[in-house]
């Protein structure tokens, strides 16, 4: 894996089906994510520190601002069909929340309904996975997480980066380790940023297309991952 062994990304998975929760948890852990699973949208919002009636109150959301939580959530993956609050309802609440809207959200569903998929993507979902979810789907999550992280880093570290460039070329000189790691990541990924964005657009479109085809489109016969997918 890369340099970020001390920073595991944390995914919150939401599904009312026990079996599907176990499955998505295993898929995510196998891909080296830290995982929290909950069985409802309501519990998801509680975990995220957002209470339904407090949503419009900025003071409450700032009590649990994401980047100061001990456990930060880097991505939310949720089932669409759930009793009470659907995955779509949850998605909307997240996107309406000033503290949560930047967290990428992915929707899962066992049904291939184009209008449903479109609605979710338009509401801001990054991807729409058809169930049963596979390792190849989970492998698509990273870019969405990195895109958000990169955006945060660009905002926070731009000034610092300019300062640092006036210093010595020696990377080790007096910089906190974390900062130089972030910077290193930043340099690596700035090149990818453009590509990722384009790729993302293509991805959303092609994902839409794939999902709209019959269940057994070529995408369904996926290459097998014979244990090499993740190496920790």
């Amino acid at each position, binding site marked *: 894996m890369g340099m970020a062994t001390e920073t595991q990304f944390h995914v919150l998975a939401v599904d009312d089906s026990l079996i599907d929760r176990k499955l998505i948890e295993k898929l995510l852990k196998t891909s080296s994510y830290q995982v929290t699973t909950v069985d409802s949208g309501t519990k998801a919002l509680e975990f995220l520190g957002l209470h339904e009636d407090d949503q419009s109150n900025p003071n409450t959301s700032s009590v649990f601002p994401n980047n100061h939580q001990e456990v930060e959530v880097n991505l939310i993956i949720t089932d669409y069909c759930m009793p009470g609050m659907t995955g779509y309802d949850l998605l909307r609440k997240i996107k309406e929340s000033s503290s949560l809207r930047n967290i990428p959200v992915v929707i899962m569903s066992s049904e291939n309904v184009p209008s449903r998929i479109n609605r979710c993507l338009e509401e801001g979902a990054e991807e729409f996975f058809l169930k*049963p979810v596979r390792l190849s789907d989970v492998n698509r999550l990273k870019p969405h997480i990195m895109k958000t992280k990169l955006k945060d880093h660009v905002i926070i570290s731009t000034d610092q980066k300019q300062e640092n460039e006036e210093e010595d070329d020696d990377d080790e000189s007096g910089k906190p380790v974390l900062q130089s790691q972030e910077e290193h990541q930043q340099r690596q990924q700035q090149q990818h940023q453009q590509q990722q964005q384009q790729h993302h657009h293509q991805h959303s479109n092609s994902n839409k297309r794939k999902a709209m085809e019959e269940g057994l489109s070529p995408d369904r016969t996926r290459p097998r991952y014979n244990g090499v997918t993740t190496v920790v």
Partner: protein
Amino acid sequence: MDKNRLQRQLDMKRSLIDQGYLDEQFIQLEELQDEDSPNFVEDMVTMFYNNSARLLENIEQALVTGPIDFPKLDDYMHQFKGSSSSIGATRVKNECTRFLEHCTAGNAEGCVRTFLRVKQEHAILRTKLETYFQLARQAGSSASGGAKAR
């Protein structure tokens, strides 16, 4: 690891797939099995059967307690179908699809008929999987060893 027993396990798996009892999703589950969860597949299947017993009871109750609540039946069966799909139980899943068609059409007789087939496939698969996991244990395949080979 006993090579003959391993072969028996693999042959049975091949056969279950060829006959349409199981599909690619079951293979995916096996590929997820590792040192951290050495019994992942069997655990998932056990969970499925524990869960589905309740769902099937609910469906049966809803079918015999008239008048039939088709939306509720639809809901139960969708849940059941979803779980079947998640463990790769193809035949069970397909019977669920047929049931759902009758449900949507409000065809009570069709629902009853297809429900019996769902129950039947569900039971048949359980027996076959019990045998399969027994073979896997005998082959020493509870860790990834045997499961990964095709």
